[in-house]
């Protein structure tokens, strides 16, 4: 797929340009290899939780859906796994709880959407509200500390110089890319999102598959909750605020069609890295959050424009075939 390679090269170029800007504005920091390595590690660490969530989101969007509840699921999974009861079962218990809660909420989303025939936007919007509410209920609206040293050390322990949470992120991203590109599951995801009726008539269990996509997204949120809890050494109902928008934005600038049927995990990961790098660059230069948000918005628009131009040629062809261009009256 040269199309997606071109796009990824473009995003890589943006990343390099961002580092170039960093070097021009803060040469004393970016010129120091030790600092630079540490800063890259920071960017990767800050990308880990949202990155894992974005992998799940990308699958859902390619499959023709949307999951607005990811941030809320992260919060619920984080809060649930940091309740004292759960922490009593050790790190394994906490991880299991987070993954089970994530997958469970995803399953509810999936059943509502695939079998209850709710519009994904509405079902997951409702779940967003409900899951945050439940998280607030469980936590008693308090910030819950993670008392488990093993969970907390995922952020600090390094393997070959790389923090464990970054390694987990890399493993999830790689698994996601393989799942999408090299498995029947991935192929069916593209088919279900690209043309659900065609997929159905080709014998694919469209509803079952759609449900699995939301379970997958929920599972990714569970993993993301473990990573975020480790980083913040705590969890609370308001954590992972607006992750849904960040994940959608990253997937979109990575070339995922919001209407489904097309997208890549690599692109989405690049999208996450671009956003984290911008946050980091603005922090290093002590620029305001407002300016940062404006730049992020600009990048999303630019990416979507590029997407339209690239798909323009195919669309134009199809239009020529069908002569659908309407007169203005």
């Amino acid at each position, binding site marked *: 797929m040269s199309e997606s390679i071109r796009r990824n090269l473009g995003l890589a170029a943006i990343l390099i340009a961002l580092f170039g800007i960093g070097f021009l504005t803060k040469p004393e*920091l970016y010129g120091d290899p030790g*600092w630079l390595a*540490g*800063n890259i590690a*920071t960017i990767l*660490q*800050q990308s880990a*939780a949202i990155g894992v969530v974005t992998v799940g989101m990308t699958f859902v969007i390619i499959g023709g859906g949307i999951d607005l509840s990811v941030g809320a699921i992260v919060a619920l999974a984080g809060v649930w796994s940091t309740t004292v009861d759960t922490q009593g079962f050790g790190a394994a218990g906490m991880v299991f709880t987070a993954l089970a809660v994530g997958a469970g909420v995803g399953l509810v989303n999936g059943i509502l959407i695939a079998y209850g025939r709710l519009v994904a936007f509405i079902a997951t919007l409702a779940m967003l509200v409900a899951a*945050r509410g439940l998280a*607030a209920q469980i936590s*008693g*609206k*308090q*910030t819950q*500390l993670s008392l488990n040293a093993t969970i*907390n050390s995922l*952020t*600090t322990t390094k393997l070959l110089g790389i923090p464990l949470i970054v390694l987990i992120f890399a493993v999830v991203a790689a698994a996601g890319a393989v799942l999408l590109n090299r498995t029947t599951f991935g192929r069916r995801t593209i088919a279900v999102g690209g043309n659900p009726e065609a997929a159905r008539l080709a014998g694919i269990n469209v509803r079952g598959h759609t449900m699995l996509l939301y379970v997958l997204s929920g599972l990714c949120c569970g993993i993301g909750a473990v990573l*975020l809890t480790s*980083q*913040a*050494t*705590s*969890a*609370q*109902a*308001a*954590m*992972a*605020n607006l992750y849904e928008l960040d994940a959608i934005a990253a997937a979109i600038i990575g070339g995922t069609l919001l209407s489904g049927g097309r997208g890549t995990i690599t692109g989405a990961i690049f999208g996450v890295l671009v956003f984290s790098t911008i*946050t*980091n660059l603005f*922090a*290093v*230069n*002590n620029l*305001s*959050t*407002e300016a940062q948000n404006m730049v992020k918005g600009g990048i999303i628009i630019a990416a979507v424009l590029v997407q339209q131009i690239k798909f323009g040629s195919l669309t134009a062809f199809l239009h020529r075939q069908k002569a659908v261009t309407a007169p203005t009256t």
Partner: protein
Amino acid sequence: MKPGPINRRRILLGGAILTTTAALAACTGNDTPSSAQTKGGDAVPNSSPGKAVTIGFSAPAADHGWIAAITGNARAQAATFSDVTLKTVEAGADAAAQRAALATLVSQKPDVIVVLPHDGKELNSFGLEAMKADIPVVNLDRAFPDALAYRLQIKGDNYGMGAAAGHYIGTRLTAAGTASPIIGEIAGIDSLELTQERSRGFKEALAVYGFSVANRRAAEFTADSGQREATNLLNALPTMDALWNHDDDQGIGVLAAISQASRGEFFMVGGAGSTAAIQTIQADNSVLKASVTYSPSMASSAIALARLIAQGRGMSDLVELAVPKEIVLASETITKDNAAGYLPLGF
């Protein structure tokens, strides 16, 4: 507003002072015998039961420890009075939802309403309406701009909080003889007026010592956002002398980031005064050396004062026959030395 000499003096005095503004019950009687306006020890104490009153209460849904503490404190304080019935309504997710919730509350005709609005400006009109309907309104923390919209305003001092943090850092660094120190700041949600007030107080207080903020990041009052912003800030400032974090809840994440980065060359001041933070200060085993208060105890005070307003009583230690119109809490600085005394007020 530019820092003028008045502001500066206010800062040096160490924060704001309990202010009383007129709004006294007019002394219409002409049979007052004494000319000196003093209060003897014979007054009926405020704690003595009065007529039974119903207090309506509304605060935003808590997504944060501080607001959770506000609601908790209000409930707890109301429970201590045998003559108070508390009616709480869920304020929902935004100002419009809160306005709707308050409308139902008004229809139940409580004797007084205590409200922590989502946004003081947006709910100002509610205050006016309720006051017009003869229901006194106690405005908690987020001020109504219109003085006619409330009977009593009780709030924290955001500017004073920033100023106290700046003052503490300024004094400590000056005492240590640090020339041109590098100071970091992790603010709360940047779009809130209270965050801007805090940052302004901090900046102006530091200016008194000739210091300035080297890098300021805005988090979202959550631990994970605190960790994110602090991690980036620590990278931006490879060495630092002092750090002020606006909020102890997000401070959990800030402290996590600091320990994850194995940094410790600076000291940190927190904000709001959570129990965990006070304990950490007391233990003196981390970079957190102080916290400046913005105590949710104001909710307890608001309930106590609302009761007096509804009962038509004044504060027993004050001369005036009615509760004052405005109370601004002083922001206090908690350090290792006085932490024990603040522990009961932590949230």
